[in-house]
């Protein structure tokens, strides 16, 4: 009996494996066949259907396309610009990876040989380079009659580079150069044939600033009157961390502004999320919503601190130009808006130091501020550091020093004094507060009464130091998106109870101390 069973098992295994192997063979033959049958389309040779994804968007401003050869067509100009930027991009990637992938599409054979020498040399020396250009100002010198050859000079090419020796950063440089470039049209691509670096002749742009607010001796002045920020971080109660989404309701926001105004506050802080606003291609509808909010704040006589790049976390050099286009679009749109007090470049960027590298984050911040000020010299600029220690960074680049404070009350004065000695710029306590999350689930939490006491003490400290402040936040929230504090229920629950007004719309005891009574 057992013998027969065994025999049957052997049979099943034999037949099963035979069928299995056959199935595998058939599958592999069919996949080989289908691979050969789905070959490249003939039209692919013409490069007509290349999908164009924007990965590299430095600022390009043509100075002129006048030339003695042939009038430049708008379409060709666009194609040249695209291929020229792609040429920079593939070279940047090549220097980062020391791999020549993609170079042949944007460099002619001879030019490619030159670039390859650099790559090979760097590879043997174990050098890698992260490279990005920030602005290009091409001026056409010549466009041939048959439309196959162009020569142009690219003026004031701003270039940022970080050079690694092994894994260590050896250098960081930001410089400006002019390049004379000759490109040829070969099988549908404009390819670089010659590229020559030339000395820069400095051309300075005059910027006329129409300042809405100014800084005099560590005080903020508006219309020549000293201005103390008494503010609050604001999200609508229904849509925290999604202020400009589908449920955007300007009437609701307007009535919230009334509450804020009646509480004798004068400033709000709002958040613009990088991805939500469309990254490099800022979505017009979102800008319209932001404009509505700013206009409403203006009618209620509230100043606004707009925090940009919320939830952004890449910082890599090859991603820079995309963020530059994002900030350009937003700040140029609102550079004349009187209700904006300051642009806050990023909320708590120091929290990304560990994951992304302090150097990367600082370099990105430094450059984004340069870009921001280039497009909007009217408004003040700040960075929302998460603590007093980090707030010592990059002071020379910003107008206001913002920091957040969620630590023990009794250590505030010491932390503040240390920071205030290290800066001459106005300080803003940009976020502070305590969650009244006492309950059955959290017997060790803070009660609403303790929260009120916390604010009373803080208000006293604020008036002693004459400090600008913005508390966190107006409302208790019902739902906290997972992206804010993670998915752990006790963390989410804590974040729900920072408000002055509870989930049912009643003012909590702390409301009395939302500002100095």
């Amino acid at each position: 009996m057992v013998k027969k069973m065994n025999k049957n098992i052997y049979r099943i295994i034999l037949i099963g494996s035979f069928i299995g192997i056959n199935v595998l063979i058939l599958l592999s033959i069919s996949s080989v066949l289908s691979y050969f049958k789905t070959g490249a389309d003939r039209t692919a040779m013409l490069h007509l259907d290349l999908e164009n994804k924007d990965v590299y968007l430095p600022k390009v401003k043509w100075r002129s396309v006048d030339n003695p050869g042939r009038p430049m067509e708008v379409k060709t100009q666009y194609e040249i610009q695209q291929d020229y930027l792609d040429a920079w991009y593939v070279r940047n990637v090549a220097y980062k990876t020391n791999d020549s992938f993609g170079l042949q599409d944007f460099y002619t054979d001879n030019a490619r040989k030159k670039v390859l020498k650099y790559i090979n040399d760097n590879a043997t020396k174990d050098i890698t380079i992260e490279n990005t250009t920030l602005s290009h100002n091409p001026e056409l010198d010549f466009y041939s009659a048959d439309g196959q050859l162009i020569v142009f000079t690219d003026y004031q090419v701003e270039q940022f580079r970080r050079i690694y020796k092994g894994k260590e950063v050896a250098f960081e440089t930001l410089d400006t150069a002019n390049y004379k470039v000759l490109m040829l049209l070969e099988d549908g691509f404009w390819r670089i044939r010659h590229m020559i670096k030339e000395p820069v002749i400095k051309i300075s742009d005059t910027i006329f600033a129409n300042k809405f607010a100014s800084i005099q001796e560590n005080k903020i002045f508006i219309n020549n009157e000293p201005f103390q920020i008494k503010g609050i971080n604001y999200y609508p109660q229904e849509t925290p961390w999604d202020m400009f989404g589908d449920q955007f309701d300007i009437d609701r926001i307007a009535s919230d502004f009334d509450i804020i105004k009646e509480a004798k506050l004068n400033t709000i802080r709002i958040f613009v999320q990088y991805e939500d606003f469309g990254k490099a291609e800022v979505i017009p509808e979102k800008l319209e919503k932001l404009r509505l909010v700013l206009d409403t704040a203006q009618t209620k006589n509230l100043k606004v601190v707009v925090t940009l790049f919320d939830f952004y976390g890449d910082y890599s050099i090859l991603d820079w130009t995309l963020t530059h286009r994002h900030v350009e679009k937003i700040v140029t749109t609102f550079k004349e808006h009187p209700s904006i007090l300051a642009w806050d470049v990023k909320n708590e960027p120091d929290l990304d130091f560990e994951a992304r590298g302090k150097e990367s984050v600082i370099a990105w911040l430094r450059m984004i501020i340069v870009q921001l000020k280039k497009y909007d010299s009217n408004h003040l600029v700040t960075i929302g550091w998460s603590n007093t220690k980090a707030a010592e960074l990059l002071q020379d680049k910003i107008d206001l020093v913002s920091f957040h404070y969620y630590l023990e009350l009794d250590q505030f004065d010491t932390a503040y004094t240390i920071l205030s000695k290290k800066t001459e710029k106005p300080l803003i306590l940009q976020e502070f507060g305590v969650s009244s999350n006492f309950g059955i689930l959290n017997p060790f939490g803070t009660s609403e009464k303790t929260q009120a006491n916390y604010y009373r003490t803080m208000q006293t400290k604020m008036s002693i130091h004459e400090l600008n402040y913005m508390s966190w936040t107006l409302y208790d929230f019902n739902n906290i998106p997972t992206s804010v504090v993670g998915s752990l229920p006790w963390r989410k629950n804590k974040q729900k109870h920072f408000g002055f007004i509870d989930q049912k719309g009643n003012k909590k005891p702390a409301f009395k101390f939302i500002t100095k009574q």
Partner: protein
Amino acid sequence: MIYKKSIYVIWLALFLIIGVTYATYNSNIIEEKITLITKERVFNAGEDVSLKFKITAHGETFLLIDGSYGITIVQATRIDDHLIFNFPKHFIEHKGEISWELRINNQFKQKGKIKIIANAKTKTLIESYFGPPSIIAGGRDYAMMVTIPTDSYDNPVKDHTPVDIKHQFLKIIDEDHLDTDYLIAWKNIFSYTKSGRILVSTECNETDSKEFTTIVYADNAVDFTIEAFRKHEFADGNQVTSIMTSIIRDQYGNIVTDGTYVEFIIRNKENNVLKAAGTTIRGVAEAKMLHPDHEEEWKIIAYVTGMAKSNELFLKYAPIKTDYAIEITDNKRTITVGPLKSFMKQIIPNGAVVTLYIYQKNKLVDYKVRTSFKGKVSFELIEDFYPDGNYTLEIEALGVKKRIEKLELW
């Protein structure tokens, strides 16, 4: 006395101490001093470039160099208190500015610039682009010669280098002396009034390019004449009339390109339009039309669309003036027409068109078209289609109509 001596000794000792301290202090300052010894700032491509610094400080030294195609870091060779940085070969081969920056222990020390220029001592190479490959005669159209002379390291030669651009056309051989500017030298070669082929070449620093060529085609056609050729003038529906253009030329007398499309528009007596077309060979286009089978008058104009047209040609086709018999047999269901005869009473060649119209109660119920064979055409009225009854038939052949009233089929 001893007391005095000891004071001298103390003073001396003091001086010594101060002096030594001062000297040490000074030498500290000297230590920080870095001088670039290399005087040259401009180098020929391909020649060795090294920067030599006099320096006493120790530490990890780097030179950052940034050229036309890329950036790298170079390490120094130290000989006593001299630091020598040899530039990598590929940097010194490529024309353009190289900026450098010296850092010691990652501290910025000095920066500067050198320039690599095209090496005029090496053999010049020429890369040229000439296009388009064909142009139109008459001096309005042109082809452009663009030439990029480089040194043997593939660097465009310095601006204002003389370049000769030469071209030949028929007996003309011309030479233009130009200077390079923005890396290139260029020249528009305009067409002459004759068609033909222009050969172009360039020369720079005694290097000659290969031969380039563009074909000069005739300019737009100008008005021309047409002529008809036919075997006879009778409307026999059988012979072919051919219509030919004169040699079509442009305003300079060049024969238009072979294959120029000519359209012949024909208006008949009823003002209907007939069309024929031909393409030119050595300037002549030809179209052919079948003779009409009835008396007709044609007015013909030929066009090279949008450019030129011909005179109006008038053609008249005479009627054959013939008669024919009609035979009705087979219970009146077979109608035989013919024999059909042409202008000399000869049996008409096969293919003359005969049409039969069938009416019933003054209403056209059907018509049939046949072509002649050996001068005859026969129609059959099948019972299934044409039930018994009274019909009126009408026959048209060679422009002659005949009518058979009230034919009773049974």
